[in-house]
């Protein structure tokens, strides 16, 4: 409850229009960012606890949940550095939905499978040089792995197993054709 209250407190402060519009002094903007960050981190304990309860407290599904805070510059330490990942999409809408997932990865050959082990079409798209060259971006990802997550149930989820594998000539996934 203390963690949640930290975020409630921060959000209470953020009701002020200054938190959105840029009509605050820079040191106030920095303070807003600090408050949000600390509350966000505090609530990660609640998120971790809730997700581990949902997954049944089994050891193999007990994860140390973290947030990919640099996803907006196509960077994610998890997807870049782990050869195998489970990707789960939760649909918060009240109707069935779908999404094209884009995961920052290193160049390679990847296979995406659904929860029945069937291969899901995927492709690798290079990350634009303008993003790769951002001076503050600290990432080894050079490409985005794109796949289509279809028919995610209303307020439900769908999961995928993404693995980096040896390249096969008849692979279903490859680097998309690039024309300059």
């Amino acid at each position, binding site marked *: 409850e203390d963690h949640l209250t930290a975020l409630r407190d921060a959000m209470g402060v953020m009701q002020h229009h200054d938190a959105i519009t840029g009509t605050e002094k820079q040191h106030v903007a920095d303070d807003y960012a600090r408050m949000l960050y600390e509350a966000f981190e505090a609530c990660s304990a609640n998120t971790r606890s809730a997700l581990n309860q949902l997954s049944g407290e089994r050891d193999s599904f007990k994860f140390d949940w973290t947030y*990919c805070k640099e996803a907006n510059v196509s960077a994610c330490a998890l997807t870049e550095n782990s050869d195998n990942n489970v990707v789960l999409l939760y649909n918060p*809408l009240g109707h069935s939905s779908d999404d094209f997932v884009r995961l920052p990865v290193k160049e390679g050959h990847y296979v995406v499978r659904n929860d029945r082990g069937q291969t899901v079409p995927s492709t690798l798209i290079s990350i634009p040089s303008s993003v790769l060259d951002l001076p503050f971006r600290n990432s080894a990802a050079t490409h985005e792995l794109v796949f289509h997550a279809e028919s995610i149930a209303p307020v439900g989820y769908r999961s995928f197993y993404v693995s980096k594998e040896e390249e096969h000539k008849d692979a279903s996934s490859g680097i998309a054709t690039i024309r300059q």
Partner: protein
Amino acid sequence: EDNVSIGNDLLTVHFDENGFMSSITVDGATHPLKQNFLFYEGAYGNNEEFRNRSSGAYIFRPNGTEKAVTEVVELQVVKSELVQVVHQIFNEWISQVIRVYAGKDHVELEWLVGPIPIDDGTGKEIVSRFESDVASEGVFWTDSNGREMLRRVRNKRETWNLDLAEPISGNYYPVTSKIVIDDGRNRLALLNDRAQGGSSLQDGQLELMVHRRLLRDDRFGVGEALNETQYGDGLVARGKIFLMFGQSSNSTSQSPTQAAKERFLQNKIHLPSWVFIAPANEFSLEAYMSQDN
């Protein structure tokens, strides 16, 4: 040498020889649709009189000029069955990725703007502008914090006779989810991922302000210029605009109206799927499939 285009079964986006988006084909009909980034230079006032304020955190007050950031765009085209992509580089500080996903009836434009240069001593406010053949006749619609769309008429107010001293900012409105023009035959909608200012300054035109960096305080209270920095340089911003172009709503049609399609897309933009990623190096695909995951 080829004409560049990307698309799917539902739409095709064409680019001209200079690398700009130039037209869109929907339902077999091709319509001109240009996109470019422009910037306004912020007005520098002395802040001593009400009509002589500088452009700043509280007010958008261009000095009347607008400039295109470039005449030629560098392109890279990536095509696959799932998604077709154009990477555009406008200059050293503006680039964009345009995507068309398989089976989707919208175009995704992911812009990257900054650090906005100020070494020429002028503040700049950057807009993404779209020009179409929609005969909008001065009328456009903007949302009201995601709720009903409000009809806006250029250079006009509902309840008094307007004499606009500032024809650009005076026609700007808040856009938190959608801005639309519609002439009864064709309809152009832009959906954004964050609150922005937007307008339709000419018939057939829509624009959204994506980033700004200003060097003077506007004296409305903040006491600082809107000149944010990070790592010693100006801020870099990245975001998305979703474009939908189609026929105007036809009440006799059995298919969902264009506005209804926009509403579904709007829901997905503002309530996207939550993505959870878990490293799975310690268990196999078989283990993953056998568990009640």
